Structure formats: C-alpha cells, structure tokens
C-alpha cells in the first residue's frame, strides 16, 4: 500500500476518532473507548504474534496484571488513576519479559499451551492473595473528568473550562494513549530491530545464522507486548470501576487473538480493525444472531429469543466467524502470519 494512502487512512481515522463524541450518545462513546483499549492490547499482540511470530493466547493475563497494578496503586496507595497507566505497563512489561525466558524454548503448540495456561492461572494467583483483594477484587473510585466547567485563573486571566463528561474524557484519554502507543509501535518495529523480529518469524534457524540473538529479541517482544497489554488492562480496570480475577477471563485472550486474525495481523491498522471487531462482537452479536434464531424458531427448533443480555452468544458468534475466516483464508493462518516459526518440535 503506498505511503500516501496509508497516511491518508490514518488521518481519516484520526479525524473520525476526534469527531465521534460530537455525534453519538454516551453508550457509543463508551463502546469506542473500549475499542481504543483493545487496540492498545492488539498493538502489543501484533508485535509479538503478527511480527515476531510467537503465538500467544495469554495477552489477557498481562492485561489483568496491568489492571491489578492500577487497582492496587490507585485504591490502596492513592495514586491518580491515569498515572497508574504507565506503571501498569511497566509491571506487566517486566512480567512479560520474564515469561519470555522460558518461552524462548517453546514454540508452536507448546507456546500456545503455555500462554493459554498463563491466562488461566493469573486469575487464580489474584484470588490467592490478600493484597489483590482475593476473589472480591479491588474497588476503584469512579473516574472523573478534570473539565467540569470550573473557572480557573491562568496568568491573571479568568478562563472557564469546558464541561466534559467523564465518559468523553476517558474516550479522548484512551485514544490519546492508543495514539501514543501506535507511534511507539511504529518506531519499535522499524529498522534493524523490526527486521530481526520479522526474521525470527520467517525462520528461526536462518535468523540465528545471520546473527540475530533469539533470546534478546524474543524476550524483548514478549516484554513490549505485555507492556501494551498492561496499559490496556489499566484502562480496562478504570473503565470497569473494579478489578476482579474474573475481569479478564481466558476467553478475552482468545478473543484478542481472534481479533488479530480477523483484522489482519502484521499491520497496526489491522489491529485497529481487530479491536473494532472485538468490541462490536461483544455488543452486537445478539443482533447478528437474531435473524438466525428467528429462522430456526420458525422451523420449529426449540431456541429461545436472544438479546444483548443472553450470555454466551458473543462467543458462539465470534467462534463461528473465526472458523469461517480460517476456512476462507487462502493459505490458512500461516498465510496470514507467514509461517509462524517453530511448529515442529524443538531439540533439547
């Protein structure tokens, strides 16, 4: 895709993001705030899975770590909520980096297993300890906007601040953070480092032969990817007002990977598309399924009506969509990720 088209695309996207709250109501603003959060998580996952080729079913685990960091720092230590975001990114990033070491020697199915296990385990670690609030979790203060129409004095001049609702404030903050994350991501995968990462995905053996240090770049990829997840998790916690072990279940990790597949891995624009998919699926799958259910009912099948509140429906819908996408992809998932390295077993 030519550069100018890409720049145009991003410019259009930026314009849409900035303009949106003026045209839609509060619920939609919240939806698209979550899109920014998922986009952040997917930027990280893209770096790890789409570019370095390390399959991860555990992005949600690092999000949860980030969310708990936010919970502990803001509720237990009085930090301002938004300031916890970089801290959460740091904590999650370190965790990811450390996980990268054992992950060095895992590939393909085994890496998928290990990251899946991580996604299942982090919630149970959170349940086990008191400082994480056990199974009840940590309650957060309701987020507030700093712009409440108050009057302040700047250089002796009286200025009336605009009134911005909390939801709109969070929307712009989240997208702001996502934008920063996007720029950082572009910088991160550029040049020598980006080539090294891509080389690892293509063929680890060849990469090593050309002098790429697998240990350095893989752990780095895990760490950076986890940092993005941590930031996303922090925002997620703030938006949810509470951090519990069940806040980010295994299915969220899977949904993120599915979003990457559906949106198109390897490109950050694809990550944003994936994020839109991840959010919309959760909200609108009942509507998608509605006509199907009606048809089934008319044929006489004993299926009850579905609405937004019916649990499980989003999962069924995106699971089926994922199957369809996998089926239709001309070279399978491998074509998408271009030969994710290491599906054969490793030598000890």
């Amino acid at each position, binding site marked *: 895709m030519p550069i100018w088209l890409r720049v145009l695309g991003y410019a259009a996207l930026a314009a849409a993001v900035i303009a949106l709250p003026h045209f839609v109501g509060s619920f939609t603003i919240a939806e698209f705030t979550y899109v920014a959060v998922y986009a952040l998580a997917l930027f990280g996952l893209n770096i790890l899975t789409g570019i370095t080729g390390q399959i991860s079913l555990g992005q949600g685990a690092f999000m949860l770590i980030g969310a708990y960091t936010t919970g502990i720092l803001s509720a237990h230590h009085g930090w301002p909520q938004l300031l916890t975001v970089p801290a959460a990114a740091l904590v999650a990033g370190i965790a990811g980096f450390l996980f990268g070491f054992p992950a060095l020697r895992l590939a393909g199915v085994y890496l998928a*297993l290990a990251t899946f296990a991580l996604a299942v385990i982090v919630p149970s670690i959170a349940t086990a300890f008191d400082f994480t609030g056990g199974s009840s979790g940590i309650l957060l203060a309701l987020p507030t906007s700093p712009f409440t129409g108050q009057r302040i004095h700047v250089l002796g001049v009286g200025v009336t601040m605009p009134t911005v609702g909390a939801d709109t404030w969070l929307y712009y903050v989240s997208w702001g953070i996502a934008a920063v994350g996007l720029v950082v991501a572009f910088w991160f995968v550029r040049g020598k480092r980006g080539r090294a990462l891509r080389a690892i995905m293509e063929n680890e053996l060849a990469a090593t032969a050309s002098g790429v240090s697998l240990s350095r770049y893989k752990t780095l990829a895990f760490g950076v990817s986890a940092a993005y997840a941590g930031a996303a998790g922090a925002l997620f916690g703030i938006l949810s007002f509470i951090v519990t072990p069940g806040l980010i279940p295994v299915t969220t990790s899977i949904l993120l990977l599915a979003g990457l597949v559906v949106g198109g891995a390897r490109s950050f624009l694809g990550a944003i598309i994936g994020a839109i998919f991840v959010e919309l699926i959760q909200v609108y799958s009942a509507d998608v399924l509605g006509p199907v259910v009606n048809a089934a009912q008319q044929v006489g099948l004993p299926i009850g009506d579905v609405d937004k509140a019916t649990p499980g429906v989003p999962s069924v819908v995106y699971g089926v969509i994922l199957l369809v996408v996998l089926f239709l992809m001309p070279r399978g998932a491998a074509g998408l990720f271009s030969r994710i390295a290491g599906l054969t077993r490793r030598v000890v």
Partner: protein
Amino acid sequence: MLTLAFSSSHFFQTVAFGLAIGAVYASLALAIVLIYRTTHVVNFAQGEMATFTTYIAWTLTANHGWSFWPAFFATIAIAFVLGAATERVIIRPFERGDPLTLILVTIALFVIFNGLIQWIWGPDQKFFPGAFSGTFTIRGVTIAHQDVGVVAVTLATVVVLWLFFRFTKMGLAMRAAAIAPVASRLMGVRVGWMYAAGWGFAASLGAVSGMMVAPVVQLNPSMMQSILVYSFAAAVFGGIESPLGAVVGGLALGLLTTLLGAYVSWIGVDLQLPVAFTVLIAVLLIRPAGLLGRHVVKRV
C-alpha cells in the same frame, strides 16, 4: 511453612482425594493424547467439550429425572457421537492444512462450546450429583466412597479402552490408521472414519472426566478450564503421544498438588494451579519429548 501437625487420618483422606482428582486429570489427559496420536492435533477444546457433555448429563438427571448411572452411560454415548461429528464436520476440512490453522480451529471450538454452554444453560453454578455417596472406614480412617469410586471408574474406563485398542479389529485399524494412513487405506480402512472414532472416544473420556469432577467443583461453564491446564501438564509429562504417561502423569499431578496444597500452607487451594503450571513449563523446557517420550529432533 510446613504444617507440622500431621494426622495420619487426614493424610490418607488427602491421598484419596488427590488420587481422585488425579484420575480426573488423567482421563482428560488421555483424551488429549488419544486425539493427538490419531489426528496429530492438540485439541484445545477438549475441556469445553467435556463440560458441554457434562451439562447434558445434568439435563438428564435434573430435568428428566434420570438416575446417575443411566445418565452416565447415555452421556458417554452422546459424547462419542458429538466428538465424531465434530471431527467429520469441523476438523476434516482443515486436516490437510497447516498445524497453526488447526490449533486456531480448536481454539475457535473452545470458544463456541463455551458460548453454547452459557447460552443454553446460563452462567450459574449447578448442582451435580455424585456417583457414589457415603464413606467407609478402615482402621479409623474415614474415606469417601466418591474418591475411591472416581479412581475406580477412571481406571475401568482406561482398561476398557486399552482392551479395545489391543484386541479388537477396529481398535487395531485405528492404531494402524494413526501410524500409516496411506497404507491403511490400501488395506481397506476408511481412515477418515477412524479419525472420527478417535475423536469420539476422546470426547467420551472427557465426559467421564467431567462427570467425575462436577460433584466436587460444582458444574459451571468454566469448570474444565483449569483442569485443562493440569491435563495438558499430565499429557506432556509422558510425551504427548504416551497414554501411559498421561494416566501416570495425571494421577501423580493430582496427588502432588493436593498434598502440597494440604501441607504447605502458603500454597493452599488457590496456588495449586500455578504450581502445576510451573511443572508444565519445567517439563516442556527440560524434556520437550516428555519424561517418557522419545527424543524428537527438529528437522532443518
């Protein structure tokens, strides 16, 4: 840190419970190994399929008034059909493709089954009857029938399967189809149906696993998610192609984590899973072919 008050009665009860939960891990691990041996797929959805079939058993007992054992056997049969159908309808189109796609397909199945469970039965916990009630006492130690029963049922299932594969014509054909599909076709074996049967048996094993564990952890949609982690650990313990390794690994892991949970106070109940996870990672790192498996060299 170690609980120094050691009561032998408590110890044997803990051992009994540990073996029972280990048997649950073992049967799901065996299901994973079975599918891997026949179709070379690691089925991430194994646990969710097991949960789904356990909910079917629940429906039979709770909504239709069946007693436990008829529901048990009916569910095993239903699970077989479900597993075989899943293989034929959903897995088969992807069989020729690359392994990564297959992994993602089974992950999609995970999500679909999980969603179906919540959709059909709702997210709340349900009471599932135990197969065995009451206790018996040996030398002052009181042991639950359920614990012994779970181990017995699981071992019986494993033995029946072993007999099937070892001594029947179809069992032999299934093994042959897994070893050399093309040569099997030349002998007249419908390899595709053998794969379907492999998935069927695995689903039945999963159903057994689910029905044995549901009374303990209460039936809920994410019931098998953490058990899947334990079972993966057990499956890779012996090398993902070893049925014996899966059974031994499952029992050992159940025993180990339960004993650690009971006697090392900081582990308790919640950290058993992370401990198992550490075991899983350690095994994968030290001996990727598993402690009992063959050494596999990466082809360049």
